[in-house]
């Protein structure tokens, strides 16, 4: 039995070695995704085009504007003379943010009453707008606090300054909200899913389409042996893929790896069982590579969206949340981020490991059962 399986594994790897298209499919998307997520995809916002309308022309108003410019987040692209200028700039997308400081701003600040400053954001890109707004409020809050302290010092209105409460957000594990740290480990889960589901389902469907599957079935090879012969090679390819991405992530992108590599390895092995099971299951319902391609697309996309990779599961409707609990990627992401960024081990990740193991067994077992039937 093991001799026959070894034969199948060797054959599969020989085919993969010859298959230039498969190698291309394996290598290029990996690098592209890695570098897109490493460099381009970011939650941070820099150099937001900003227009300023300063109707106060005071020391204080200039000071506030200077703070915006100095933060690095905003780039003052224009100084407006009227409200109409502001409107036009936002409408033409020359600016995303407008800071409007009305006349009397300095007086109000000196008097210690609330001073009117208005921030307008272009909400058409709500993501950027929200992030920019949070920077705005931080800069303004800092400014206001300093002014207040300054004022109370100068007026000596009381022996004790009025108590101020400031809310400070302190992200753990990723102190700078570095989105690269967040994205690159996630790429491991996505790419493994895409690559291994595709390779596995195509490997079986191609044999069915070409006719070699029928030839195999008249040899003494049993269905279980055939399935092992198909899965072991892609299990190895999957492991290699994870090692490469993790290597590039830590060495090139300087993502910290704080946990135990063996824990990641265990999680990866269990995740691969699930992914191989999905690929095999797809191959049992598809007769042609064309069908397999379409089916893969319909499975991989929801798996990605409902995994918590970029959209929070907690804000999804109940039904979607339920799907995400049977999505292996959901659990693997926790394992990856846990081992990379938090450095936690099995004492924390055991529920995810159990879930992955359970899903893997169910998926593989049903694919073996379905596979037998699909031969007749």
């Amino acid at each position, binding site marked *: 039995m093991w*001799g026959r399986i070894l034969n199948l594994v060797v054959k599969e790897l020989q085919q993969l070695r010859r298959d230039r298209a498969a190698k291309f499919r394996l290598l290029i998307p990996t690098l592209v995704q890695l570098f897109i997520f490493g460099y381009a995809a970011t939650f941070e916002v820099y150099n937001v085009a900003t227009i300023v309308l300063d109707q106060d022309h005071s020391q204080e108003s200039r000071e506030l504007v200077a703070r915006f410019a100095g933060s690095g987040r905003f780039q003052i692209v224009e100084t407006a003379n009227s409200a109409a200028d502001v409107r036009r700039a936002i409408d033409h997308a020359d600016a995303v943010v407008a800071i409007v400081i009305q006349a009397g701003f300095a007086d109000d600040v000196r008097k210690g009453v609330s001073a009117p400053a208005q921030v307008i954001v272009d909400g058409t890109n709500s993501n950027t707008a929200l992030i920019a707004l949070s920077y705005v409020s931080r800069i303004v809050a800092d400014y206001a606090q300093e002014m207040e302290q300054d004022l109370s010092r100068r007026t000596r209105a009381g022996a004790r300054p009025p108590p101020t409460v400031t809310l400070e957000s302190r992200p753990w594990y990723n102190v700078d909200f570095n989105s690269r740290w967040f994205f690159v480990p996630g790429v491991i889960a996505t790419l493994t899913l895409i690559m291994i589901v595709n390779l596995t389902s195509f490997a079986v469907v191609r044999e069915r389409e*070409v*006719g070699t599957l*029928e*030839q*195999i*079935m*008249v040899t*003494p090879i049993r269905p279980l042996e055939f399935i092992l012969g198909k899965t072991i090679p892609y299990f190895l390819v999957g492991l290699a893929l994870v090692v490469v991405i993790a290597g590039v992530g830590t060495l090139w992108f300087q993502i910290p790896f704080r946990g135990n590599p063996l824990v990641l390895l265990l999680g990866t092995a269990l995740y691969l069982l699930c992914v191989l099971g999905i690929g095999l299951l797809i191959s049992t319902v598809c007769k042609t590579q064309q069908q397999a391609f379409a089916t893969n697309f319909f499975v991989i996309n929801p798996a990605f969206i409902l995994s918590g990779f970029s959209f929070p599961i907690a804000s999804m409707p109940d039904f979607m949340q339920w799907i995400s609990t049977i999505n292996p990627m959901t659990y693997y992401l926790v394992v990856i981020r846990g081992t990379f960024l938090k450095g936690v081990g099995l004492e924390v990740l055991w529920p995810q490991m159990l879930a992955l193991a359970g899903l893997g067994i169910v998926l593989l077992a049903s694919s073996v059962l379905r596979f037998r039937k699909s031969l007749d």
Partner: protein
Amino acid sequence: MTGDIRIRADKLTKRFGDFVAVNAVSFEAGRGEIMGFLGPNGAGKSTTIRILCGLLRPSSGRAEVAGLDVAREPEKVRANIGYMSQKFSLYDDLSVMENLSFFGGVYGVKGARLKRRIAFAVEMAGLAGREDAVVSDLSGGWKQRLALGCAVLHEPKILFLDEPTSGVDPASRRRFWDLIYALAGDGVTVVITTHYMDEAEYCNRIALINGGRLVALGSPSELKRSAIRGEILLVEGDDPGAMLEALEGAPGVRDVAPFGSSLHIVVDDAARDRAAIEARLAERSLSWSRIEPIKATLEDVFVQLVGEGGKAAP
């Protein structure tokens, strides 16, 4: 003789839903026999072979191959048979040697025996010196001989070949048949499907299959004797269509069938009926260039038993 029976099919039937693809087919094939399945597309030839290989379960009836029940012990049967499926059955993206090692390995042929068998297959296919060529670079004839080599690596007692020569040039087909004769000479039972009539003549016995039924079974000469009761006249002329119309139902004519641009006419006695046919054609003022008695071919048998619609592609 019974000890030499290698295949025994008894009222084999296969239904797909309501459709009966194979209908109560019974036959036997002995050691070293070349048995041909001849029939139009969709007749049920491949389905019958798939049942005999244990790929499909019969709906009813039973089949024994190498003395083993195919439905009950398919795994044991498989060690005794070689199979070339109707589709191309090698790995196109592997080399000649990689294919041979793979199929040898899965059949459990090992060590010195594997070496010897691979050398035999390479020799047989005429691929010596091209062991590292990728199969997709080989032309049809080589591929087909290599596929045969892969199917006999484990020295099976019975060989099933489903349209092995389709799409191969005539010279390669002849060479392939030489190999089949050699294998049969060594005692291998060969079951082969074909739609080439000339190939059917090479078989020891022919099973004529149509609509899932076994229509006739016998050696080529037996089939000709029993199916064609009479003699055959070949008629050639300018307007075969009009001649066909003129001769259908004419006195002395038992049957008329077009063969290319000529007609084959079945008559009781060629010498006697020839005059009547010439008279009939003259009466309709149709001119002919040739009328002469010929030997019946399997194609005549086929047309007699299966009918015009069943005539296979040339």
